[in-house]
């Protein structure tokens, strides 16, 4: 049945898997998700009145999640590449530590973030002076928390994808004289883009939904650090929570569908 099955799925996914189609699919789905989230919330009868309340947390969440995903993505790809390509003792240990945020309770992350970043502490004070402003109880802290939440997924997915790249491509590029960094950027990573994108998507979903650590480091300050996840709890008994839920759910579902689509093509 193995061959049968492969034939069937090959033909069904063949269209969706073609490189240019895939990019279109991703963009379309992403736009759909954001657009739906924004548009539906706007249009649904009875909810329009609450947009004023929802608007603040909505944009704040984007301000947090987008940079967080970008940073986690770049760092994750870099870490994944290093893990895939170099073999040093303690490599697995490093991956384990980097994967900690997957199962480590968010409050533990929040606690250690507070301990390291608060201006009151040694390291935190130093960092605050270097960066120019505090990293706690404001957006910066939220971004840090969201980045940490997203990072392990980007790292693991990137590592798996890069390990799956046929080394003959890289060898060919080397014989053509390309230096290592160009081989990485122009050959390896593009070939691994599907798995990397899947990691980014799920990392983004985690960044959007981060709760525990954001709560502790950000402080849940209305207007400043109250992301959608937090605002839902504050507005628990009020109608605007439905709008927030809708937006969050649509964003996350988009992420998952993206992961599902991309994950297929890997096998």
């Amino acid at each position: 049945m193995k061959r049968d099955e492969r034939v069937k799925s090959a033909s069904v996914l063949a269209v969706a898997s073609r490189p240019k189609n895939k990019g279109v699919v991703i963009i379309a789905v992403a736009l759909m998700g954001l657009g739906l989230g924004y548009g539906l919330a706007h249009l649904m009868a009875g909810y329009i009145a609450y947009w004023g309340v929802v608007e603040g947390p909505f944009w704040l969440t984007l301000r947090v999640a987008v940079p967080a995903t970008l940073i986690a993505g770049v760092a994750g790809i870099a870490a994944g590449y290093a893990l895939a390509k170099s073999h040093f003792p303690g490599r697995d240990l490093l991956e384990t530590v980097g994967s900690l945020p997957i199962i480590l309770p968010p409050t533990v992350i929040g606690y250690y973030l507070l301990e390291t970043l608060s201006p009151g502490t040694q390291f935190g004070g130093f960092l605050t002076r270097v960066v120019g402003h505090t990293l706690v109880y404001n957006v910066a802290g939220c971004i840090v928390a969201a980045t940490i939440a997203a990072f392990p997924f980007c790292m693991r997915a990137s590592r798996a994808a890069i390990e799956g790249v046929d080394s003959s491509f890289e060898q060919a590029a080397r014989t053509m004289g390309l230096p290592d960094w160009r081989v990485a950027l122009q050959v390896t990573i593009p070939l691994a883009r599907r798995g990397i994108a899947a990691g980014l998507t799920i990392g983004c979903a985690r960044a959007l939904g981060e709760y525990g650590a954001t709560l502790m480091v950000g402080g849940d300050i209305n207007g400043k650090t109250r992301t959608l996840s937090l605002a839902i709890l504050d507005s628990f008994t009020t109608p605007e929570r439905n709008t927030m839920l809708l937006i969050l759910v649509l964003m996350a579902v988009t992420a998952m569908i993206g992961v599902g689509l991309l994950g297929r093509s890997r096998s």
Partner: protein
Amino acid sequence: MTGLIPHSWLNALGIAPWVWNPLSVSFHAAVEATIVVAVAGIALGYLLARTHFPGRGAIETVFSLPMALPPTVVGYYLLTQLGGPGPIRNAEVDLFGHPLTFTFTGIVVAQIVESFPYCLRFSRAAVAAVDPRFEQVARAMGMSRGRIALLVTLPLARRGLVAGVAMAFGRAIGDFGATSIVAGSVPMATTMPLALYNAVFYGTHGQAMVLALVQVGVALAILLGVSRLGKVRAW
């Protein structure tokens, strides 16, 4: 909330109640949750990997949703479905006599929902990685599908399956968002992550430090164990 180890021993060892109480809650809830998740997750993972029915991908995506959904969303829906009016609440009252919100069982349910995707994905990947020719030989030998699954496929996949259960356990014992919303701060039934939050919130830094360290230890131990089990990639 009785533990496997008598409280008197723990006190005698110098471990304070504010440590072993939440640890006991988290641990026992996670054990119960993981038992359910392991059975259902491995079974569904096997089906997804080996049987071919339409909508396979959709099912995997749906059951993986808790991994991507914000914990507050999961917590909110659990709270309203388990606590608010509806068929699920009615079923709970029939089975347990009361709704599950703000109870220990509610914690278990929240942990099940949040940790299920991990076991599912690891299991599916592990079963899919088994060389199908083992099963082909078994079929030629006349073994029924059920026997093949139990005697051939699952044992061959056991490393990945164990890793999936371990990850699920780690995720369950480390859950904060969903469990704290569904169960809140029930006296004598507070989970460890929530206890840490309270310690920070109320300024008891000594307690916070210990609670945090214990949880880091647990998470590290589980992840190290999983990485020793080998290269089974769920994503």
